């Protein structure tokens, strides 16, 4: 690696401060003031707008499968989502997904 120890610590410091400021942004500066309704209406969809996008490429092209679509992982992902949606329960969903993954992987 072509970077000095000073450079590495500089990166760590900048990333630490920058990441904290990103996380603190709205929570810190807006405080208890009420944000406008149109903004709140958008923010209500933050989790369902970020998490599926975070996960979708990992499901479609998992690195561990060489970046190609893997039927076993795809089936496990669908089982997770279906059971979590149907039972309205995170743990049942995760359990269904993990079981599907291990079982199909053992079969094929």
């Amino acid at each position, binding site marked *: 690696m072509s970077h000095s120890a000073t450079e590495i610590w500089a990166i760590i410091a900048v990333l630490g401060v920058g990441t904290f400021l990103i996380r603190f942004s709205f*929570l*810190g500066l807006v405080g208890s*003031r009420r944000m406008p309704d149109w903004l709140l*209406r958008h923010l209500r969809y933050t989790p369902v*707008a970020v998490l599926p*996008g975070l996960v979708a490429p990992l499901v479609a092209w*998992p690195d561990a499968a060489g970046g190609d679509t893997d039927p076993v992982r795809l089936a496990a992902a669908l089982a997770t*989502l279906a059971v979590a949606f149907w039972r309205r329960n995170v*743990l049942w969903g*995760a359990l269904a997904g993990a079981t599907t993954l291990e079982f199909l992987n053992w079969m094929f």
Partner: protein
Amino acid sequence: MSLATGKSAFLEGFIAGVPFLFVAGPFAFLFGVVAVETGLDIPQSVGMSLVVIAGAAQFTAVQLLSEAAPIWVAMAAALAVNLRMAMYSASLQPHLGSAPLWQRVIVSYLNFDISYALGIAHFDERPERPVDQKVVYFLGTIALTAPFWVIGTLIGAAAGGALPDNALIDFAMPILFLAIVGPMLKTLAHLAAAVSSAIAAMLLFWLPTGIGLLIAAAIAMAVGAEIERRRGR
């Protein structure tokens, strides 16, 4: 807040967070291994996990360093990966914004994908809970994972090469996040937002790390909000 309700909120969050140990542990170990292979020493590897405390961004930074990228490129790319957390911060504000400043500082430091996802799922279910209980619940979700992120990095950095050999462990993270999303799909607006997010993120995956996801999230939030506006909640 009485001590008993505070304890119970913490315990509820703590229990919800337990499964994520199986994600964060191996992930942290892997980060330690990769960081040392890249040329960071053990204090630097552990220091990064303690100070930055954001898995995907740390991997991005180390990956770029190993490719001998200029340090400003590594910094910019890693911060771009973390920009989604500004959305998390805004989304938590209606629930936690009235907490004292020092509590908001701690919550911000510990605002990960995991704690955010578990926290917001709970707050949307129980919006009437007092803010102090919400803060305690949030901290409970991450009380196990956060220390393990740092300790796991230390073990990985010290151990070097010996990777966990279960090839399926890479998929623990997608499964747990999908399991969190499932119960959130309460209305057509939520469902449409989730589908838009997944499709847009895949279409935009060629963009630099983190940027495609930001655009996809913005599109998906607009889709959800627009459907809600037309149909009512």
